[in-house]
């Protein structure tokens, strides 16, 4: 039977749908007219206005501090959690598994409001530290899931063999387990880092006056600033995204 063309059209339609708004933003960022449907000439004005903005660098610094610190902590906690989930089949681990799985399905806004109420009732000042705590909380589950995926291929008897041959626990973990898990830990860490850099909703709830991160800054620009400057910022972020994807693909190819 001849195959229907319908699935092809749907797939093509989806891809157009995915890229259309992005293409428009890129075009608009070079358009001299403020919103204009009409093309009023090529300009780099919006880009120069963007780079003149001092506050944005402060926001980028905050974002990187939080992403790096929350990734480091969530890698440790997530990997330990994955080890426990892999190694033991007890009632405790069923509960533990649920605890890891739940934050993945809870909408951001619920995690945001509940952490805000939690911090407020402890009278903690909101700022970089509360954002850090929140980001670790949502990153643990992602790291644990990715590392657990890597664990599925791990043969535990190798670790036991090392112990039988006289290696201490620490040596066996350091020399055998960690190197084996490294690709999973790196992938989980990268995911946690990206999620932290990208998060708006949870950060919005638990941030204080001087702890503006890049997504918070973009949001305030979207509300009050010039849309054309955000177009320019978007294009730079899109370009950075593509460069990072390209580099990580190249790195993976080299490893193969």
């Amino acid at each position, binding site marked *: 039977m001849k195959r229907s063309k319908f699935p092809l059209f749907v797939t093509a339609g989806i891809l157009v749908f995915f890229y259309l*708004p992005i293409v428009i933003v890129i075009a608009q960022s070079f358009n001299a007219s403020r919103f204009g449907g009409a093309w009023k000439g090529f300009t780099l004005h919006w880009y120069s206005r963007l780079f003149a903005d001092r506050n944005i660098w402060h926001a980028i610094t905050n974002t990187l501090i939080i992403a790096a610190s929350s990734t480091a902590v969530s890698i440790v906690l997530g990997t330990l*959690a994955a080890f426990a989930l892999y190694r033991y089949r007890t009632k405790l681990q069923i509960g533990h598994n649920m605890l890891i799985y739940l934050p993945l*399905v809870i909408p951001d806004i*619920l995690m945001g409001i509940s952490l805000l109420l939690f911090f407020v009732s402890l009278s903690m000042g909101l700022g970089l530290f509360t954002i850090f705590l929140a980001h670790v909380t949502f990153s643990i589950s992602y790291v644990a899931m990715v590392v657990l995926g890597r664990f599925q291929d791990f043969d535990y008897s190798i670790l036991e063999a090392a112990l039988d041959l006289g290696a201490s626990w620490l040596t066996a973990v350091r020399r055998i387990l960690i190197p084996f898990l490294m690709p999973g830990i790196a992938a989980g860490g990268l995911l946690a880092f990206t999620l932290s850099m990208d998060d708006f909703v949870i950060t919005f709830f638990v941030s204080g006056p001087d702890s503006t991160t890049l997504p918070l800054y973009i949001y305030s620009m979207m509300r009050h600033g010039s849309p054309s400057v955000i177009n320019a910022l978007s294009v730079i972020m899109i370009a950075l995204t593509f460069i990072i994807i390209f580099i990580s693909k190249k790195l993976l190819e080299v490893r193969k």
Partner: protein
Amino acid sequence: MSGIKKKRNEMLLTIPSAGWLILFFIIPTVLVVAMAFRNADPYGGIGDSWTLNTFRDLGNPDYPSIIWRTFWLSLVSTAVCIVTAIPAGYYISRLTRRYQNIILLLVIVPFWINFLIRIFAWKVFLHPEGLFKQILVMLHISSPESLLLYRTEAVLIVIIYSYLPFALLPIYAAAEKFDYHLLEAAYDLGASRLQAFVRVFIPGIRQGLLTAVIVVFIPALGSYVIPDIVGGPSAEMIGNKIAQRTFVDRNLPHASALSALLILAVLLPAAIGMTRRFFKEKNSASLGI
């Protein structure tokens, strides 16, 4: 290794992550539900006494329509995502490996771009003075006065845009494992193309469909940024009300009551998903896999 030592090791591995999540996830969530039964104090904080008034206030004119809109938008966007993801997932799974990877990359790449920026792109795209609007006016599809932005349909489109890949990926993954000889067998046995698709293919990718429904419906229920940016006051969802009560009127018990409602709505499908997952793992464990 002795049993006690084994137990001790298990605890050492479990306590850090479990402890963190209990402290920063479970306790705050329980706290939200508890706060819904507290009264508000005049300074924007939480009062000392317990009350049921907050839930009675949820009956006032504003809320039921917003709650209804939230469920309705989430249901429709889930349905649209599933209905478009099925043919696309089918199509991608029938390509050669090389083309599968290319299309999957094309699907994923836009979603590495910051969430806010993607939503903002839609605001630019649908803007009254934007190119798209002008084309529609030129083709007489839309009148110059009508608005594309700040309405429920805009929110719906952007929710679909944001969550369609999450529906597409599990459906593709299930379709990729589907044995297409079954479809040929159905044709040979006299089934029409549609019959074979509905009665053989759809049941075959059931697991992927279920995952897709959960990963679209739950985040859609919690939408906040999308209606905030492309929707107007007439397209508000529960998430917007939670943020308003928190930041604008500073009525934390009201925000908590709305959140409690959302938690309930989310927990139900999540519980179903988790039970299924648990039984699946149990089955595979009993098979010794």
